[in-house]
């Protein structure tokens, strides 16, 4: 019988697959928001006791990961009229095939690892492995700086999922620390982005090669 958590995670895996093929930035942002929401809800279902603190924490994570970060990126994109294509180095079709390979590898690895505490949730660990690899892939193969930031957030979502699944009973304070980390990271990236954009009128990172002393 398929667990309800697994059903949501199947959708996350599908969104991972699509994020390889998307050329429009706003679709990628929607994917990131969706993944952020699911990633923050899942630990609540698997092991965390439903205390008041737990609920508050889940809602806070959900708000930051699922709504605030994607929305702020979207607003920044609209405000500066940044080009909405992700400018890939590897083409979309090859990317989709890479995505399939990543998902196959992730399921294979998770089967090998076979962690007993989460063995009830079949898709949890494959998703947790596929997310960081996808983020890494987007970081490496997209030239648009915003796509890179989104890749970083996807990667971070995956790390969060791995962290919460392996240490099922991590303290909330630790998770909150991770969350602050992301927020700070995104802010720093936003500042750098703004500088790149002001200098070159574009967020294509290829432009940075022309910098000289």
């Amino acid at each position, binding site marked *: 019988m*398929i667990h309800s958590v697994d059903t949501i995670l199947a959708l996350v*895996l599908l969104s991972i697959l699509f994020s390889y093929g998307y050329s429009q930035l706003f679709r990628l942002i929607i994917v990131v928001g969706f993944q952020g929401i699911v990633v923050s809800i899942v630990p609540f279902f698997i092991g965390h006791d439903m205390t008041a603190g737990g609920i508050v924490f889940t809602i806070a994570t959900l708000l930051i990961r699922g709504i605030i970060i994607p929305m702020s990126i979207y607003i920044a994109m609209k405000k500066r009229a940044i080009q909405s294509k992700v400018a890939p180095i590897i083409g*979309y079709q090859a990317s*989709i095939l890479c*995505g399939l390979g990543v*998902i*196959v590898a992730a399921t294979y690895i998770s089967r090998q690892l076979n962690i007993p505490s989460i063995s009830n949730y*079949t898709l949890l660990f*494959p998703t947790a492995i596929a997310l960081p690899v996808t983020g890494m892939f987007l970081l490496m193969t997209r030239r648009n700086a915003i796509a890179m930031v989104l890749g970083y957030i996807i990667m971070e979502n995956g790390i969060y999922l791995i962290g919460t699944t392996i240490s099922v009973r991590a303290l909330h304070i630790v998770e909150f620390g991770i969350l602050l980390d992301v927020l700070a990271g995104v802010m720093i990236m936003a500042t750098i982005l703004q500088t790149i954009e002001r200098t070159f009128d574009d967020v294509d990172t290829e432009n940075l090669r022309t910098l000289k002393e």
Partner: protein
Amino acid sequence: MIESIILWLFAISAAPFFSAMILKVKAFFGGRKGPPLLINYYTLIKLFKKGSVYSTSTTIMFKLGPIISLGSAITVLMFLPIAGQQAIFSFNGDIIFILYTMGLSRFFTIAAAMDTASPFEGMGAAREAYFPIICEAATFMIFILFYRLTGELQLSAYFSGDNTIALWNLAGAPLLFIIFSFFIILLTENSRVPADDPATHLELTMIHEVMVLDHSGPDLGLIELGSFCKLFFYSTIISRLILPFDLGFPGLAFVLYLLGLALVYIAVGVIESIIARYRMDAVPQFVLTSFALAFFATIITLEFIR
């Protein structure tokens, strides 16, 4: 057995009617009245009454093309369990036979197009050869999944009697992906929007239509009938997948089946009305989505059923 043959004859004769439903839906979206639902029969009768014109540069290949494409389309229908009934023929591994019978018809269509020595037709033939390759990979992925679920390699094991409901019970969520994937295959294989536009009048943007430009009269009629039957084949499979219920009476199952068919054809019509066709280089990515979905469904299923 007799029922199967009657259903088979029904399929061939009803296929043009359902294709006209697409035109009706498109007309509805355009705010027009649209052609009558029997338009395709009138067209076929008109075409069969005409004579044929053959270019002097063509050979026997050109005349074989339409006959084989219709022949393979109705052969494939013989293997299809219509409305959950048994198929006329069925043997282990008939899926592969079916796929390559369709491949045969594609080969002869392409060969007939090349035979005319028209540069436009060669261009269409190249596209027609390219896109279905990805479709074939996707179709095989779907059948690998079905094989994994049922352990059988024949269409009757998936689509007749209670077997489809059994499939849903085994793997409900992946089957949703399969339906989407199969719908994309349907659109591509039958050259519908957004992969190809059957109503286009510009040779440069045609895929399937450009290959049959030189056919006339009865030959064109055979090709049209063949393409109606092919669309009917794919629609029947999707109809069975979305409404797999058998409610006791055979009559009721048949009504459900017709309902499913109408749904599929209306969905095709709606998609043709609201989506523009893709740029030629975006089509492979669209088809690849169907492969990715099927592949994804297979991985997920393997993960759950060890």
